[in-house]
């Protein structure tokens, strides 16, 4: 797989038959430019949470791929996502992180847009434009599709993409693990505090791959486990329930989403957790008991790191966060991490979780620092002309996934590898890059919606 001298993407860089992937897809500037168009301009991307724009006029400046967008609630209460760029000469019309406004005014020439995106103010409209400019044609550029799901807001630039829930497919239940209340009530999550944002010198796919379900890198976090940053003062999480559950790698092959998940035995009782604070421990024990009384597929699932294609990472349990890997260029990623708590949780619980989340995640979080160091140096050491000649291996567990995994009456969707005993596999990564390659090669969403053709493994995965 010598690839020096190549320009952009070509078929074969992701070789799932042998489990080898070229380093070019991480470090090549032309491939990066191509994936902005073919991946980020066509995928559903996480934009923000409704609690960030609770009132009319509220806005939150977010990102979709490299581009700045404005998530806002207009004066009539409707939610919009706009490209943060004036239609006249392109200047950002909003340079704040968030706030409340009646208009977005471009500081360059003064064009002004309502919170519904309409162009409402044009300096010298009567005099210089002779009232001839058709303002209705020059409003802010709005996304082609917007979806609101249990408080989260997602957007897509491509009108031909499938609706968001179809895009999620069977992965929906894993997203629910972070958005539903700990006691199982629907959509109880609220954002805790602001969004942590920072830069990492690596390609966005390094963190995306890691959060897809890299259970092989736990040795990196050995020091954190020894320190005991977890909510019971041991290790970095509570492992009481995890140790009796089946640990699974789950990949939804026709969507590109994948995760680690834990599946509890039937009739399993809650285990002690959050032992550093009696009130917090009692809250979670109560929630776990309530959760077990509810019908539905999630009562026996425990969330763990997962990834919604292409760049949204889930960590539903300890800590309960969602991260977006925003691409800045081929060699730099801007991370945005959102933290969640139960809306109705006592303030003591929220305060306890804030402390735990900060210890674990974010630029100063001890576990996240371990990861960043790995991604930083892996990227840097893969950029040279010699390094690029040598692919990475993703052979672990190749050919060992099953599609009808069931444990004590619970059937898990997608391709599954039970890693309870074998510790790890690279099925999630193969799934991520298989889908990524499909996006890079497909000219339209018609080609990408393989499930509608009833051929779930068509495309790159079969090559």
């Amino acid at each position, binding site marked *: 797989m010598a690839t020096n001298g190549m320009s952009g993407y070509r078929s074969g860089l992701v070789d799932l038959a042998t489990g080898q992937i070229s380093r070019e897809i991480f470090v090549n500037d032309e491939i990066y430019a191509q994936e902005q168009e073919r991946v980020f301009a066509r995928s559903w991307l996480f934009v923000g949470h409704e609690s960030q724009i609770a009132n009319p006029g509220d806005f939150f400046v977010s990102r979709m791929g490299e581009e700045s967008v404005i998530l806002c609630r207009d004066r009539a209460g409707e939610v919009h996502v706009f490209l943060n760029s004036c239609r006249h000469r392109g200047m950002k019309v909003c340079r704040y992180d968030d706030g409340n406004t009646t*208009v977005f005014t471009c500081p360059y020439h003064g064009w*002004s847009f309502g919170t519904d995106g309409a162009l409402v103010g044009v*300096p010298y409209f009567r005099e210089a434009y002779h009232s001839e400019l058709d303002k209705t044609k020059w409003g802010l550029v709005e996304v082609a599709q917007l979806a609101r799901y249990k408080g989260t807001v997602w957007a897509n630039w491509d009108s031909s993409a499938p609706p968001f829930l179809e895009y999620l497919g069977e992965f929906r239940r894993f997203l629910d693990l972070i958005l539903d209340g700990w006691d199982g009530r629907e959509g109880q999550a609220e954002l805790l505090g602001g969004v942590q944002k920072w830069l990492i010198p690596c390609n966005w796919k390094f963190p995306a791959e890691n959060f897809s379900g890299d259970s092989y890198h736990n040795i990196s976090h050995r020091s954190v486990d020894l320190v005991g940053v977890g909510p019971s003062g041991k290790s970095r999480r509570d492992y009481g329930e995890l140790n009796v559950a089946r640990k699974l790698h789950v990949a939804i092959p026709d969507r590109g989403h994948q995760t680690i998940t834990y599946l509890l035995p039937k009739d399993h009782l809650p285990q002690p957790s959050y032992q550093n604070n009696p009130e917090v421990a009692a809250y979670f024990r109560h929630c776990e008991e309530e959760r077990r009384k509810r019908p539905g597929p999630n009562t026996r699932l425990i969330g763990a790191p997962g990834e919604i294609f292409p760049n949204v990472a889930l960590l539903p349990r300890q800590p309960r966060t969602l991260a977006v890997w925003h691409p800045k260029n081929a060699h730099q990623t801007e991370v945005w991490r959102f933290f969640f708590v139960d809306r109705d949780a006592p303030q003591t619980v929220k305060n306890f979780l804030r402390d735990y989340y900060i210890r674990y995640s974010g630029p100063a979080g001890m576990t996240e620092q371990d990861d960043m160091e790995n991604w930083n140096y892996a990227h840097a050491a893969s950029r040279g002309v010699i390094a690029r000649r040598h692919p990475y291996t993703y052979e672990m567990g190749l050919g060992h996934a099953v599609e009808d995994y069931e444990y004590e009456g619970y059937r898990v969707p997608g391709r599954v590898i039970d890693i309870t005993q074998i510790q790890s596999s690279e099925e999630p990564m193969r799934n991520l890059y298989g889908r990524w390659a499909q996006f890079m090669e497909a000219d339209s969403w018609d080609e990408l919606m393989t499930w509608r053709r009833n051929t779930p493994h068509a495309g790159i995965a079969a090559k």
Partner: protein
Amino acid sequence: MSDGPINIRALTAGTRVVLVSGAEAEIVSNPNDGVWIFARYVSAPDAPALVGQEEMIFAQDVADVRQ
């Protein structure tokens, strides 16, 4: 006519301003972006039809503030 540029961010609802066209308008609200104010025309010698209408007024069109 004011001696220099007017800081329209400091103007509050109810304030009357004179425009370079000679029209006069009363501020309805101020988005505080330093570029626009929302105002209702109270007189407009060159365009009487504007009287009573509410429009966005550009900062550079504001010539003076009625005391």
